[in-house]
């Protein structure tokens, strides 16, 4: 039987379904016998799930406007460089 500490060390791979079959069987056996680890496993799974649904953060309007202005300036400058190079060709 695994100890709780050993179970915890494997928790990530278990939740991400990356554990090998024989280890998975041991972890499942531990879960069936240890209510505390069952709770930790269940609530950690729910933690991941609830964050997966978290909407992407929005960029404040002023930050977005300054970013667009900087990018447009960069693209315009790159365009001028290309035109200048072409003229010399």
């Amino acid at each position, binding site marked *: 039987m695994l100890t*709780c*500490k050993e179970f*915890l060390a494997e*928790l*990530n*791979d278990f*939740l991400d379904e990356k554990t090998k079959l024989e280890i998975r069987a041991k972890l499942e056996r531990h879960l069936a016998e240890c209510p*505390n680890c069952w*709770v*930790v496993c*269940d*609530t*950690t799974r*729910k*933690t*991941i799930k*609830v*964050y*997966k*649904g*978290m*909407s*992407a*953060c*929005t*960029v*404040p*309007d002023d*930050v*977005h*406007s*300054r*970013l*667009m202005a*900087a*990018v*447009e300036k*960069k*693209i315009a400058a*790159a*365009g001028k460089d*290309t035109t200048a190079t072409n003229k010399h060709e």
Partner: protein
Amino acid sequence: MATESVPLEAPVDDELELVTRARTGDTASFSVLLRRYEGKIFRLAMNITQNREDAEDVLQEAFLKAYEHLDQFQGNSRFYTWIVRIAVNQALMKLRKRRSDRAVSLDEQIDTGEDTVVREIAAWDPDPEERFSREELHEILTGAIDDLAPIYKTVFTLRDVDGLSTEETAEALDLSIPAVKSRLLRARLQLRDKLTRFFKRKGDDAFAYM
């Protein structure tokens, strides 16, 4: 507020074409990529620099650098995993400038061993988030993440919120795969602990173990 970034899971088959057009000076194509990922990059920059002004600089520098080096994007990965590396480098350079006396890594303020200890044991409802309004839930989730050390919040956000693989996260942050895994475990357990305060089944008391 400006436009909201689309989820990473949205179709990205168009990215190579967008990049190809952007390379020829098509501003609109680059804008599509920018709108798609600016929110995620800004959040990442905030997570690392902990400072709005620095985060804005990182956001700009990352997109400007990405534009300069568009020819290096081969389309083998998502545009996000490519630009995220640029943004992390820019953010670390910001930190280095701020503390010019020493080298800075994201990993410097951790590993006491204490943070893998599970402190709160209490069962949650099947869908505990449904007890809260969207705004309340957002506040709870961002509040819990904000309390984490920068390395934990960055690893957790890239891996579990943005959906990068462990390998992509390791590459973006210049960490080994075992390092990403151990930081992810700590982040997940710490967040679980913090959320238990809000999500535990009514009437249940939390108790400590381990």
